[in-house]
């Protein structure tokens, strides 16, 4: 089920980060991030996504913060803290870039308790977030109630994730 509440995570001169296309499933939700930059603005364009934790000092990465205090940081291949059995787990589904536009789609599981779900983006390795957007956690839960399970799917926990998030 789609939740139409788009959020503007960053809005500064010649630079914007948009989160939207939020789609809710019984076990989590997906959202899209669009990092847009005007080629005429001063300075280099935003750095691409970090591939792993070591690259977060200079590349772009993301944090998802739940209203109960759970926080997970993510890049294209890793979550930190590495073990966090109650989640949230944040997984890049797709990422691509062209001139002035970086598009990524993320999967977050499990669903949040009611309250604001914060999406904090760290552009260019910034330690403090460049911007924070807030999704309506209650709206996500309402949408999840309307989602239907048509058939069971096998778990996607492959070897890459077997060592993570185990109790």
């Amino acid at each position, binding site marked *: 089920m789609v939740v139409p509440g788009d959020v503007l995570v960053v809005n500064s001169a010649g630079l914007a980060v948009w989160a939207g296309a939020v789609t809710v499933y019984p076990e989590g939700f997906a959202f899209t991030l669009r990092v847009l930059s005007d080629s005429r603005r001063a300075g280099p364009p935003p750095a691409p996504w970090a591939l792993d934790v070591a690259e977060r000092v200079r590349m772009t990465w993301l944090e998802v913060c739940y209203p109960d205090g759970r926080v997970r940081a993510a890049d294209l291949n890793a979550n930190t803290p590495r073990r966090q059995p109650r989640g949230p787990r944040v997984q890049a589904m*797709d990422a691509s870039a062209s001139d002035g536009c970086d598009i990524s789609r993320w999967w977050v599981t499990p669903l949040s308790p009611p309250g604001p779900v914060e999406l904090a983006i760290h552009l260019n390795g910034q330690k403090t977030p460049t911007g924070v957007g807030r999704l309506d956690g209650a709206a996500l839960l309402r949408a999840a109630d309307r989602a239907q399970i048509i058939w069971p799917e*096998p778990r996607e926990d492959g070897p890459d994730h077997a060592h993570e998030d185990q109790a």
Partner: protein
Amino acid sequence: MRLAAAVSDPPSVLWEDGAVKVAAGGEGWASTPPAWALPVTVAGDLVLVRQGGVLVSVGAVCAYPVGFEFYLTFGFNPAPAAEWRARAPGGRVLGFHARTPHEQVTAARIAVGLAGRAAADSVACMNREVTWGEPIVTFAGGDAGIPSYAPVLRAESRWWVSPLPSPGLVEFSIFLHGADEPNGTASLDAEGILEAAGRSQVLWPAPETGPL
């Protein structure tokens, strides 16, 4: 006029942002989603196919001043007895590419009928150059297919449609495995897309490269 609100006071020349062009007079068309505007999401939540162990749906629809993007999701029931298996020969469960002779007869395609305009077809747009202003539906990202060895038989892709529809119904039709007739069709009122496009925020002018 809704477009005029989103693309205010367009210049007297055509602007170009890569392949993106916005015409004077407020009529917009682009071959890819623009990088100079924020989309506005509306819920599609349309089910095109739900039978034989196949689920095809249109989820989020993101409207821009010059078109809209939609999310297309496929799911195939992994059960050995699922009916779709008998109709999906070859090495892929789903694929939009139509390059090789085998792909050309097995490719999936999505068609979008824009109210008041001709329908746009994904395979047709893939195999030839499109001309300015013609209705298009082009791949914009995500999963281009599902190989038979995938652990989960699910794919989500994004598709770009331009120009915006006229008021009326926007019809989505999906053709699986080279089918001549659609396996499923569903419609959405264009009003929601047009209203969202009117709220799309233009961030900065598209880079100008001179008159065409």
